[in-house]
């Protein structure tokens, strides 16, 4: 089954490119550490999912590029074309002359409706190229105006037009500070709208990825391209093919559906995060060996201590002693910084993957009281190695990890809202105080629900 990607805005388009490039290079790499035949099946499965028919042998990404100004799209298209390995569809992009100016309202209420038909037509064309459509990736930042505003608009439209297809928004969570001043407004508007129309929000935090680049990848002067590559790697580690079941040799056909069914069935808990291990620069890799036990031990501690990377994990954090009754509204000072999960999905790739022991993730203490590990934890495996790592593991979690950042954003936006700062920029384009209040209400609820797991 195929996934159609919609890349929106500068951020969405830059990341989209890296994602496709990562998927392509990985599936065509010779480092898969598996038989040729298996590698071909892996390749074919990846291709069915993310690339469509070849034109002169060059696969075409199942993607639609949308931006309101042409610079980034031009750059992205030509970068893909120059790679010579894959490219974007010749007419699969839409751009205008003038961006949304960091104004969510402009993207959502002006650009969105104005270009609805063109954008939906492009998506429709891409959908028609799929024998079978599983769903959509919508890659967007939530801080800006185009990605966030049009992204929310497009997601809503996809929900109306393709009700059965799955919609996963890849959300780029802005740095805590310093990108866009109205980012908190734009973020709450984006998140609240997506909560109504999307099935899952896979959140990528710029701050976290930035740290990975600095600490794990050892990059001195970190560029957006570095950040995007890490992010693409994380996405690839989740969505490259895996076997459909233990002992099966068929690749999972609808990973998006399986993932969602396992992680986001509850309407109040739609936010997902990815952690993966190992991640390091090429140089260090040569000197490293890994065992499954070691990787999974780290990954588990990353999960429960809410660490975004394997360095600087707080090993003091322990799951609460199970059996204690949850006491209603007490979670803030719950076990020190213990990150409660609702559900987790582990994805293991590489050598001897059958031998990996995942019992540590089946501890009920890791999870909210109302779900049993049997419902809350799943594993996907394949012995085909991912990227340059002989063994690697990723964990997609629906957990409390985002509560604090979300709470911060809502709080800051609320402060600004209370002083009515910048509101005139939004009301100018039809987003009224009432809409803000709706968004605040919904997100406060989400925060509270996650707190009270």
């Amino acid at each position, binding site marked *: 089954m195929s996934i159609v990607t919609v890349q929106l805005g500068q951020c969405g388009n830059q990341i989209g490119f890296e994602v496709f490039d990562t998927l392509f290079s990985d599936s065509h790499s010779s480092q898969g550490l598996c038989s040729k035949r298996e590698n071909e099946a892996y390749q074919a499965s990846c291709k069915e999912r993310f690339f469509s028919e070849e034109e002169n042998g060059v696969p075409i990404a199942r993607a639609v590029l949308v931006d309101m100004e042409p610079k980034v799209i031009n750059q992205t298209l030509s970068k893909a074309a120059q790679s010579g390995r894959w490219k974007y569809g010749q007419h699969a992009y839409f751009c*205008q002359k003038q961006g949304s100016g960091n104004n969510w309202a402009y993207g959502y209420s002006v650009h969105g409706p104005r270009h609805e038909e063109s954008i939906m037509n492009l998506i429709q064309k891409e959908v028609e190229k799929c024998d079978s459509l599983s769903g959509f990736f919508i890659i967007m930042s939530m801080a800006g105006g185009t990605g966030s505003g049009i992204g929310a608009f497009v997601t809503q439209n996809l929900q109306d037009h393709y009700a059965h297809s799955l919609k996963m928004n890849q959300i780029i969570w802005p740095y805590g500070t310093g990108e866009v001043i*109205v980012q908190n407004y734009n973020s709450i508007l984006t998140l609240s709208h997506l909560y109504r129309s999307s099935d899952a929000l896979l959140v990528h935090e710029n701050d976290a990825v930035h740290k990975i680049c600095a600490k794990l990848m050892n990059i001195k002067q970190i560029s957006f391209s570095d950040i995007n590559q890490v992010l693409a790697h994380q996405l690839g580690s989740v969505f490259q093919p895996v076997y459909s079941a233990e002992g099966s040799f068929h690749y999972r056909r609808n990973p998006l559906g399986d993932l969602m069914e396992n992680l986001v069935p509850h309407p109040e808990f739609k936010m997902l995060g990815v952690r993966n291990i190992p991640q390091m620069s090429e140089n260090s890799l040569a000197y490293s060996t890994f065992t499954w036990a070691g990787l999974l031990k780290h990954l588990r501690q990353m999960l429960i201590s809410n660490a975004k990377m394997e360095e600087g994990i707080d090993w003091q954090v322990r799951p609460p002693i199970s059996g204690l009754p949850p006491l209603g509204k007490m979670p803030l000072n719950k076990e020190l910084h213990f990150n409660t999960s609702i559900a987790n999905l582990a994805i293991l790739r590489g050598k001897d993957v059958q031998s990996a022991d995942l019992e540590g993730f089946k501890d009920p203490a890791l999870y909210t009281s109302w779900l049993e590990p049997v419902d809350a934890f799943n594993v996907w495996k394949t012995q085909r190695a991912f990227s340059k790592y002989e063994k690697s593991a990723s964990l997609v979690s629906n957990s409390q990890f985002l509560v604090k950042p979300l709470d911060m954003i809502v709080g800051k936006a609320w402060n600004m809202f209370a002083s009515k700062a910048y509101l*005139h920029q939004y009301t100018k384009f039809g987003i009224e105080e009432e809409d803000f209040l709706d968004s605040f209400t919904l997100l*406060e609820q989400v925060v509270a629900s996650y707190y009270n797991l």
Partner: protein
Amino acid sequence: MTQSVVVQIGQCGNQIGCCFWDLALREHAAVNQKGIYDEAISSFFRNVDTRVAGDGGSISKGKISSLKARAVLIDMEEGVVNEILQGPLRDVFDSKQLITDISGSGNNWAMGHKVFGSLYQEQILEKLRKSAEHCDCLQCFFIIHSMGGGTGSGLGTFLLKVLEDEFPEVYRFVTSIYPSSEDDVITSPYNSILAMKELNEHADCVLPIDNQSLFDIISKIDLVVNSGKLDTTVKPKSLVTSSAGALKKQHKKPFDAMNNIVANLLLNLTSSARFEGSLNMDLNEISMNLVPFPQLHYLVSSLTPLYTLADVNIPPRRLDQMFSDAFSKDHQLMRADPKHSLYLACALMVRGNVQISDLRRNIERLKPSLRFVSWNQEGWKTSLCSVPPVGHSHSLLALANNTCVKPTFVELRERFMRLYKKKAHLHHYLQVEGMEESCFTEAVSSLSALIQEYNQLDATKSMPVADIPRLSIAM
């Protein structure tokens, strides 16, 4: 890609404009060495086939044939404009872009605003429409004028209203040169205050610049350069203030160097919209991020570095210095001290070989020394443009919406009141048709209201930052 039209009004406006076009041409020539007319160039220039008569000769693609500035030049005297038309830039303009008179406004805002305003309204509109027709997505008008004189101040602010009515969706960015206290124009306080009211009401963003600060900056550079200290490290012609071959004339024409700084400001302001970068910033993002309340649209700017070292591979230390300088009192294009006032919002527009990590490091470093309003503690907007200014490896333009503009306004009001109490020179104004005393009182109360808004914000400076109670979820 969008386009912008520069409207330069009055003597000051035209002189700065002239500098701007000179630098803009140089910049594009340096970046675009193939001589292909591209989108970046198109934002300020039309490509015209001169063999075709009339306006039909626009070329949208291919080789550069003949570039025409997207500009409208207005002056009620002929001197400066004529100079331009005889100078090296004459090919960039054509007569259809000009509006001149011979009488001058006599340093009288009312003449410029009321008399020439109504007299030239149709003509100005026609030229503006024409220039807009040549754009496929007109995004912004840059208005360059001075506040103290008659034409720039009076007709310039008249023009704002015209633009607002005619092109409501196009941004109006105004570069206003404020008179220094020792200004030789005696009526400049009147003109400035009358103009301020119009700026308050009809501009999207105002970049206030005062002559005194520019002069101070130039003097400081001269001092450094001539002291010989930097002789070995300063790259020739690397000064921001240098225009080709003009270096030696600096002492004779200090205005050239000063105008150059303003022109550079405009170039850097638009660079991220024109050129590629990993974090773009379009013009519409400026007002979106920096103007929290409609009236508070005065942005104090600073530009660093003003010269560059010969070695392009600067160590981070130097890079960090660039960020520090941008916040120092000495580098502001207006006499103001942002560091000791309250920030409402701040934009850092970086050009050249600088990465997001450099930007973040410096924000983290500088943040503790800066005060931000309680509801915008992280009021930073940033952009990264990969194309550096000519001759530099990198540069930074900082735009601050800061209460530090207030003293200038207060001082202006004081000077105005000193004159107004004596009713000095008032009759020059009141004899102009449509001009009444109420114009003065309204203008001054408009300014007072603005000052009051800044006062209120300043008052919060000393208050502890407390979170406003949030919506309370009952579960």
